[in-house]
């Protein structure tokens, strides 16, 4: 067996932007073109607005809870923008912005947190799996989707998302290994935001980096500055290309930071200080990309207004959609479990229907 040290990630996370938004040259990595950057910027602005709006809806009691990706939007947006129409996205509960960037209606996405049903959108419509809650389990599903596509000779790539905490689960390991052995075209994309609820990365792993896990499966590992939109785009694009062209699975770790509490139900002052959070404010992906686009003179005032307007429209539609009363009908409880309800479920549905008819009497 070869030693394959080239499977190891770079010593530092890849950057294409410095702290002030100035481009950094990387001989190996083409800088995304302006069209791509503008699309990403638009999605970033919309994504940030969606995060804020969802937070507000929680405060108003319209949503039960919301895990915000504030500060991680570069990762969210890039994960979707690098995919083609026939590719698949496998998101977690925190990846709402990635899901809507792929075209899913935010109101459908938030069905779960509104409490109407579990998964709210049609996974086949945009090839986006239901957002996964049981950690790391979805990574295996991603491998299965990719393997099935490969068996049929399709050139589908699957983008499978997870957090730093989820890498500790056995399913992370099994997914990486299955993908590598089956040469399944999956890009495993870890958003390392330094926390799993209250648990910091140092209590999660002693590895040099999470991308160093790749070599143990024979999988190429990469690290990227997760708040550097051009870099995330370029690194993920390269990974998707490698997976599509038969290079097997790829592992990418983005270094980013969870700017807010785990969800609105969490109290992060119990386990981290603002001293730790503050420095990350200046690394905001939105600010950095905006600085670049201004420097490149691609972001005119008119365009900016147009984008902000679009974000406001999305937020308004969210407000409107989430506030709409859409109480699901109790008969749904029995409708979807099996293709054909069992006799037992028919009986039970009848019991409930009878109760409800008596209630409404």
């Amino acid at each position: 067996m070869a030693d394959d040290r080239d499977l190891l990630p770079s010593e530092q996370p890849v950057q294409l932007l410095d702290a002030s938004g100035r481009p950094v040259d990387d001989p190996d990595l083409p800088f995304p073109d302006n069209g791509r950057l503008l699309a990403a910027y638009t999605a970033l602005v919309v994504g940030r607005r969606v995060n804020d709006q969802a937070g507000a809806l929680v405060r108003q009691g319209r949503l039960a809870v919301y895990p915000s990706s504030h500060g991680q939007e570069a990762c969210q947006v890039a994960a979707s923008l690098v995919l083609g129409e026939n590719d698949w996205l496998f998101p977690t509960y925190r990846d709402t912005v990635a899901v809507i960037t792929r075209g899913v209606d935010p109101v459908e996405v938030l069905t779960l947190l509104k409490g109407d049903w579990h998964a709210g959108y049609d996974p086949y419509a945009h090839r986006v799996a239901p957002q996964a809650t049981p950690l790391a389990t979805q990574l295996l599903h991603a491998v299965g989707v990719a393997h099935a596509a490969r068996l049929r000779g399709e050139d589908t790539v699957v983008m499978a998302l997870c957090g730093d905490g989820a890498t500790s689960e056995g399913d992370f390991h099994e997914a990486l290994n299955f993908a590598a052995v089956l040469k399944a075209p999956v890009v495993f994309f870890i958003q390392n935001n330094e926390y799993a609820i209250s648990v910091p990365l140092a209590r999660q792993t002693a590895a040099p980096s999470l991308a160093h896990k790749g070599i143990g499966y024979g999988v190429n590992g990469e690290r990227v500055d997760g708040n550097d939109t051009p870099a995330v785009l370029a690194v993920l694009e390269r990974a998707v290309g490698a997976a599509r062209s038969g290079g097997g699975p790829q592992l990418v770790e983005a270094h980013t930071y969870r700017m807010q509490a785990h969800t609105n139900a969490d109290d992060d002052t119990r386990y981290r200080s603002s001293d730790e959070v503050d420095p990350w404010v200046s690394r905001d992906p939105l600010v950095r990309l905006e600085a670049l686009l201004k420097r490149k003179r691609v972001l005119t005032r008119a365009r900016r207004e147009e984008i902000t307007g679009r974000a406001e429209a999305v937020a308004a539609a969210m407000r409107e959609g989430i506030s709409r009363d859409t109480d699901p009908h109790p008969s749904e409880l029995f409708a979807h479990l099996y293709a054909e309800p069992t006799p037992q479920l028919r009986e039970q549905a009848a019991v409930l229907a009878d109760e409800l008819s008596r209630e409404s009497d």
Partner: protein
Amino acid sequence: MATDPTKLTMAQALNRALRDAMAQDGTVYVFGEDVGPLGGVFRITDGLTAEFGEDRCFDTPLAESGIAGLAVGMAMNGMRPVIEMQFDAFAYPAFEQVVSHIAKLRNRTRGRVSMPIVIRVPYAGGIGGVEHHCDSSEAYYAHTPGLKVVTPATPADAYHLLREAIASDDPVVFMEPKKLYWAKEEFDPAAPRPGIGTAVVRRPGTDATLIAYGPSVPTALEAAEAAAQEGRSLQVVDVRSIVPFDDETVCAAVRSTGRAVVVAEASGFASVASEIAARVTERCFHSLAAPVRRVTGFDIPFPPPKLERHQLPSVDRVLDAVDDLQWEDDQ
């Protein structure tokens, strides 16, 4: 493959069902540990890789959650995976994938994503197996809404139920009684085919009903035979499909005799046998001359080989339970 076309073992019947399903439907994929060139440790997948190629029947890395999770993804993407868990207790690492995803995905997505997956689980004892190789784990699955759970007791049922399971758009946990793998029986492909969800009366009888499934069906039949010698006529129902359960057949049987014993190998507490006893009682209370008795495994881990006979429902234990059913001549 079978040397005598009219007689087959359950293992051969299962193998034939897989082969026929794979030949008929190109989306059927078989995978798991050692199911490829080896043909599985019980040889149920024997010859499939040779016949259908390495893509259609393949060995995975050694990880059961991985196998189940891979099946979820392949099912999402148009395939009908048939996966093998090497032994009952080795399916436990896959429990989260089975309970939180395989069982729930269709419901979670309002029916948009179906999970036509068959999980084959060789189960139960009677083969002198060591620890972790003889668990009766059907209750875990039967208690989980969204799964179907079936278990054949004859080669013919094994063949037809596996074909039905593979054709089902919903996930089926297919529990294979290991100790019946090698019993040969007539196999008439033209005989009436059991559907998932149907029980069958295996032996008519008028005095009491034995309700059994999987590895306990032969025991129930033997007990009925022994009782007949003593002049007592026992009816035997083979449940066959634990979920969905065939209340109609089972309750009609019990009502016809007024007495019932449930026979199952799994530990009794909070088991499928508990469910059968409870639901039969709820539905047939006024036809019952005596409480429904359960003959089950004790509430202990499966014993080592030298003690396993004490855990398995025996003919004597079934007859003891029948004797307990408050017969008039006792009183």
